[in-house]
């Protein structure tokens, strides 16, 4: 079988709050790690959601293995600490680590990230860029980097660091740094995936975010519809129930055949619940059409019963892997690889994300 290399190595996952973007980011990291690949999962919001998902102690500011995937693949996780990232940066460029610690004690680091809110984002995205471009022995250390990014409302500002910093600093090393970050984030190596639910607000925010990202020249990837439920009613009845509603009389014969007595208006109550279910389903279907109209590759992840544990993550990862495989096939088929794509191709083909 011919492994299909994907040009995308930096996967940014965003979504409205409550849509499960951390879960999707974790599952995506597992999917990309299949077949012996190395993946880094990055947390940017400092809430230790990744540690919770993988049931590990809170992550320090260092790359720690959190899961092993098929064929010896590895997912490492990193929770970025903005202060640590700034100190690292000071050391790297000015050899100022000790002085940096002193600054931290007087609250100067906090101060610096406060006067320039964009600085925080530059440091976070800077770390992402560093991981994406890090090389060892002539080949990338990570086959893919997955970022659990801020929510849709802030994603464009978060990624568009140059724009954000431009108003504040027109010169200086931060400016240079943010230009370098932008070069990676705007390249075809990057894809911003949006997680949504089949609910009004998340779908609307997804549409808004796609428009904003596109306007900012940032590459939009797939739309992930999370927690999609299956209807419990048979297909023809579903449509009828949504339109005209069910009554107890619709259910009574079936219930009676199984010897269920219609005590205390049971049939009527069941009909009311079934009608609500059908209406919810109809509303979801409309939103599914809206998602489709966004014109992005779309994948649905099922609503899993019970809490999300490692097993559940692997189940979701399986779905995402399938999606990535079809997407990679399609991207290759339409012949749109660009200059940076070719740079990706100089590596051993099997080393990049996607399917084998």
């Amino acid at each position: 079988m011919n492994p299909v290399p994907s040009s995308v190595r930096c996967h940014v996952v965003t979504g409205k709050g409550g849509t499960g973007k951390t879960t999707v980011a974790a599952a995506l990291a597992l999917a990309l790690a299949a077949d012996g690949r190395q993946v880094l999962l990055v947390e940017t919001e400092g809430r230790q959601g990744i540690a919770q998902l993988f049931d590990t102690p809170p992550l320090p500011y260092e790359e720690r293995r959190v899961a092993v995937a098929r064929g010896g693949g590895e997912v490492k996780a990193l929770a970025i600490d903005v202060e640590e990232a700034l100190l690292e940066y000071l050391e790297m460029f000015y050899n100022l680590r000790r002085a940096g610690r002193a600054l931290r004690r007087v609250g100067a680091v906090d101060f610096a990230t406060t006067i320039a809110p964009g600085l925080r984002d530059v440091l976070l995205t800077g770390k992402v860029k560093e991981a994406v471009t890090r090389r060892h022995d002539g080949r990338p250390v990570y086959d893919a980097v997955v970022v659990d990014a801020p929510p849709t409302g802030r994603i464009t500002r978060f990624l568009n660091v140059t724009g954000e910093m431009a108003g504040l600093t027109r010169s200086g090393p931060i400016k240079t740094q943010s230009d370098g970050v932008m070069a990676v984030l705007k390249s075809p190596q990057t894809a911003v995936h949006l997680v949504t639910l089949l609910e009004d607000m998340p779908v609307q925010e997804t549409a808004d975010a796609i428009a904003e990202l596109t306007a900012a020249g940032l590459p939009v990837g797939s739309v992930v519809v999370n927690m999609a439920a299956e209807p419990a009613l048979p297909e023809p009845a579903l449509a009828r129930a949504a339109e005209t509603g069910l009554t107890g009389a619709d259910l009574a014969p079936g219930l009676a055949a199984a010897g269920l007595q219609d005590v205390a208006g049971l049939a009527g109550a069941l009909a009311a619940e079934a009608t609500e279910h059908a209406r919810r389903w109809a509303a979801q279907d409309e939103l599914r059409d809206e998602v489709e109209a966004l014109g992005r590759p779309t994948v649905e992840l099922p609503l899993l019963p019970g809490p999300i544990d490692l097993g559940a993550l692997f189940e979701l990862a399986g779905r995402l892997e399938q999606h990535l495989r079809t997407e990679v096939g399609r991207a290759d088929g339409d012949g749109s690889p660009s200059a940076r794509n070719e740079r990706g191709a100089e590596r051993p083909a099997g080393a990049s994300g996607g399917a084998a």
Partner: protein
Amino acid sequence: MTQTTERTRRHPRPPAPAAPEALPLELAELITDPDTRIVVCCGAGGVGKTTTSAALALAAAEAGRTVVVLTIDPARRLAQSLGLGELDNEPRRVDVPGARGELHAMMLDMKRTFDDIVVAHSTPERAQQIFENPFYQTLSSSFAGTQEYMAMEKLGQLRAGDRWDLIIVDTPPSRSALDFLDAPNRMSRFLDGTMIRLLTAPSRTGFKIASASFMFFSRIISKILGGQLLRDISSFVAALDTMFGGFRERATATYELLRRPGTWFLVVATPEPDALREASYFVDRLSAEQMPLAGLVLNRTHPPTTTALSATRAEGAAEEVLEAGGADAELAAGALRVHAERMAQATREQHLADRFTSAHPEVAVRTVPAVAGDVHDLDGLRGMADALTGPDGDTPTGVPRRRILPARRR
């Protein structure tokens, strides 16, 4: 096996302690009480704070009060139905047919609110100078905490005008509900802080006593951020300084407003672990700050229409119906499965609610059932208002509104 059973029989386990019962939350009393002047709706993002605020405001207006609801970031269709198509940062009357009182609604424009403060406290030339400052432009539009600070500021303005009987405030969609309380202070501390003064006014006397380490610090900051930024901040702070008596005082004043009698906090959450955890933090914080908590609104619950059939029995019945066959067997089996799912979900939700009540037995609770589709018009809001303000015990299923499932009989 037998032995174990016998032992169990001889030493029966003591009955499990009954799950704690939440106190009922009677919001109708709260919003119609003339002494209630401010209700602040808090909670994690995405739990329905805006809709809850708007529904409560509608209910209060229908009960005869002159209400204004300050929304932060309403969904587009809800905003339209409230006549909030325009962002003019002023309350607008919403036409509510048959209401005895008045409903006004406004959407916060944080930049505009900030601009207004500047204009109100300075000369036109000074104001212009500030508006043109690049640092001010960033500060007023994207500074972390500006939205919270400006929401507080606007609340202070609305309260000072005495035009309103009741102000209902929605809080910004930050990650943490606590940001609403923390951000204004953080921001004023920053703008008022010694650090910024030392850093930005090297010619002042304060600088003379500053140590060499500060010069070093200043050098690093300008190294990282570029000298231009420091010059911008410097001129901005200088302009502000002569203009009005310090950000900190202003923030403290609005913060104190939240502690005055007549102000109530309402924590909104959905029956999900994360949202309830946030609600828990917030409840603890309010109690530490001695701010009055009205209760918890548990939004988007899924109470079943009947509790006569448990999830397990409904699933078993679905199989029996299919085995018996017949014309509408599939439909009846489907409806039974819908019910089984619903019971299971309601059980999970009640369990989470019970856990919250175990930790906070003093917090009154009101559940609000989810509706199919989103609330985006006055009728939808009215439906939610009824669920919010109806008497606790008055429901079609007889389950009190502080619960999702009936209390288990023991």
